[in-house]
């Protein structure tokens, strides 16, 4: 092997993820100063077109959040093999951050109030409402888009899910500190990327025949075409989440759970491609 070649696992993905989180949180505060959930689409468009540097700050918030999720997933894959001694309780909390980050991303999409966001909000509400017994409670607690507009989604995006994320990752973050000084290149790259690439926004057009959901939602959107919403929207994601939570790095049955996750991700990738190509 050539000398000096760096293994992908040696890259400090965790530090990159945390730096992206910092940028996402700070840019989120800036965007929140101008954002109004009462008129979400107007507000988002105004931030992009009228507010000085609004397009840049919204792009920065959007992309840093996406990078945060992306780096967190790679970080998990990179350190998985070295985490055998991690207590099971800690594993549950840390792997539980992934669905919370997805919820943060998802509510962010809804808050745009554009074609994608509005449809995603309605779909989420309808899926949750199909859950027996708890459906209405959960919908009223977390979404209720058709009843309360984006009020609840906004509250959970800016407070609840962030609090849950910190709660789950707190003990991990206390041990592994990141010096922002060491992340100057990454932060500069994110700033530059946000200057040249705009965060997506899809206004409503007359005669729209196809709306693609957020990229991580595409497979689910495709599955909802064939299966009952309870199966496609709850059981399928639940299967992956259960396998993830059960796949403790030190567990004896981890090969089984890792195989389930790999198979699930493979099927989901194919479904996402089908939805994307429509």
């Amino acid at each position, binding site marked *: 092997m050539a000398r000096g070649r760096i293994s992908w696992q040696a890259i400090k993905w965790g530090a990159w993820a945390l730096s992206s989180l910092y940028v996402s949180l700070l840019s989120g505060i800036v965007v929140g100063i101008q954002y109004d959930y009462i008129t979400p689409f107007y507000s988002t468009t105004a931030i992009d077109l009228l507010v000085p540097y609004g397009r840049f700050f919204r792009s920065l918030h959007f992309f840093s959040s996406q990078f945060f999720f992306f780096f967190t997933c790679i970080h998990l894959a990179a350190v998985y093999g070295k985490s055998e001694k991690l207590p099971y309780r800690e594993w549950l909390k840390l792997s539980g951050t992934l669905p919370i980050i997805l919820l943060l991303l998802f509510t962010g999409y809804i808050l745009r109030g554009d074609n994608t966001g509005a449809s995603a909000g309605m779909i989420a*509400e309808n899926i949750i409402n199909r859950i027996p017994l708890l459906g209405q409670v959960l919908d*009223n607690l977390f979404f209720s888009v058709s009843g309360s507009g984006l009020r609840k989604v906004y509250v959970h995006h800016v407070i609840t899910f962030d609090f849950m994320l910190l709660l789950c990752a707190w003990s991990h973050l206390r041990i592994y500190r990141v010096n922002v000084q060491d992340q100057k290149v990454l932060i500069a790259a994110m700033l530059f990327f946000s200057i040249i690439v705009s965060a997506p926004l899809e206004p409503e057009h007359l005669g729209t025949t196809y709306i693609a959901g957020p990229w991580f939602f595409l497979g689910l959107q495709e599955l*909802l*075409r064939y299966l009952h919403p309870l199966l496609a929207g709850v059981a399928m994601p639940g299967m992956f989440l259960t396998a993830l939570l059960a796949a403790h790095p030190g567990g004896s049955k981890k090969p089984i759970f890792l195989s389930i996750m790999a198979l699930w991700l493979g099927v989901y990738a194919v479904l996402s491609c089908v939805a994307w190509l429509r």
Partner: protein
Amino acid sequence: MTRILQTRTGWSRREFFVFLGSLTLIYPICRFAAFHVPKKPVLINISKPILTGGYFVANDFVLFDRGDSVWALSRKCTHLGCKLTYHEDRDIFECPCHQSQFHAETGKVIRGPATKPLAFFPVEKRASDPFYVVTT
């Protein structure tokens, strides 16, 4: 009692009762959260006259006036709630999320995954402005 609780659960009697008290709070919270305040009926005035055989697209519905019959059909897909698009050339509603199709006159499903027909809203046609009042 205290000793039994402590040995079996590791909790003191005080902690056990605090736990029970917290559990009893869950029920009222769930009832509170699950309650749907009934939606206040909204009257939408349409001041624009529609030519016979024409239609008017609003945010929540499409209003049709075909001379002897006037009706307003909901744009909310019965599958998962996405906003439907009206296609004049085929006289159908289509969902941009999963491509369910509905008949524009009857609201019935032409193609799934939706299974239930669309909702109609009451319409009042008037001779002067507002020419139509739709209750959603």
